[in-house]
């Protein structure tokens, strides 16, 4: 007997499992693969939310440096410095340094409390101290 003949002799048996085929078919046909509307809806939603999220990330990544941008900060701090400098209870102590950085120093006296404020050369508030008299 050859190998081929042996395989042929063994190949006669065919199995059948009652009900399995129909049950498997039913399960497969209920699979979400065939749920066209849901699939398209989710695809659209997924695409839209991905795009929206990407847009948010892009906007955020551009806006974060803008918040930290020195021009904006200087403007705001310059406003603070200027308005403080004009106040009656604030006097300029002139130029000094804070932590090795040159600074313009203002001192505000109010209700027996002295507040010393240090601004850098871009008039950004870099430090303040409060002393009670």
């Amino acid at each position, binding site marked *: *007997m*050859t*190998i*081929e003949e*042996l*395989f042929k*002799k*063994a*190949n*006669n*048996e*065919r*199995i*059948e*499992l*009652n*009900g*399995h*085929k129909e*049950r*498997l*078919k*039913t*399960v*497969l*046909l*209920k*699979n979400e*693969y*065939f749920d*066209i509307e849901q699939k398209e809806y989710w695809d659209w939603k997924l695409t839209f939310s991905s795009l929206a999220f990407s847009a948010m990330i892009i906007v955020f990544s551009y806006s974060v440096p803008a918040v930290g941008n020195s021009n904006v900060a200087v403007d705001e701090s310059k406003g603070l410095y200027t308005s403080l400098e004009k106040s009656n209870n604030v006097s300029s102590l002139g130029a000094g340094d804070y932590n090795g950085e040159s600074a313009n120093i203002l001192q505000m006296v109010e209700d027996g409390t002295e507040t010393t404020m240090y601004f850098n050369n871009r008039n950004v508030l870099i430090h303040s101290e409060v002393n009670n008299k």
Partner: protein
Amino acid sequence: MDTDIEILVKKAQEKDKEAFTKLFDLYYDKVLNYTFRRVLNAEYAKDITSNTFLKVLKNLDQFEWRNGPFSFNGWIFKIATNEVNQYFRKQNRYKLTIDDPDFKELGDDNKVAEEIEKKIDNDKYLLILNKAIKQLKPIYQDILHLKYFEDMSYEEISQVLNKNESTIRVYSKRAKEELKLILEVDASNFLGNI
């Protein structure tokens, strides 16, 4: 026939249930019998067949008709072969992946499975062949089953196993030689000289 299958596949990819049902009817028995002859256990053959078709469905969108007329047949058998090999790696830990309570109700299948296995116990040829084949390298096992039980060409087997056709020819020759040697030793009690 192949054109028909190609059309059915395309329709099934467009979510046509009727087309998928026809494909399922065409391939169910082939896959079930292939997996059963590989594992010789009706319950596992059933689970492997179920998992195979579930994977067919999940990956149907990615299937592309190429490599000639055996394309879809080869693709299904590739999935089934992967599942069978996964079963061999996991043996008794192989699980059914379909999570459907209705499906898990076995009904009279246990009894049917027992009957089938009793029947197979009497099929000495299949038992001897299977015992001998299992002593071969996994790829040799795949080739012998696909060539002699499923009657596939070398070209088709090369698609199923992702190997060059000439490699499959060489492996097939070696597999047959090794099988013959094993059978000469193991099966002489049953078959006499082969």
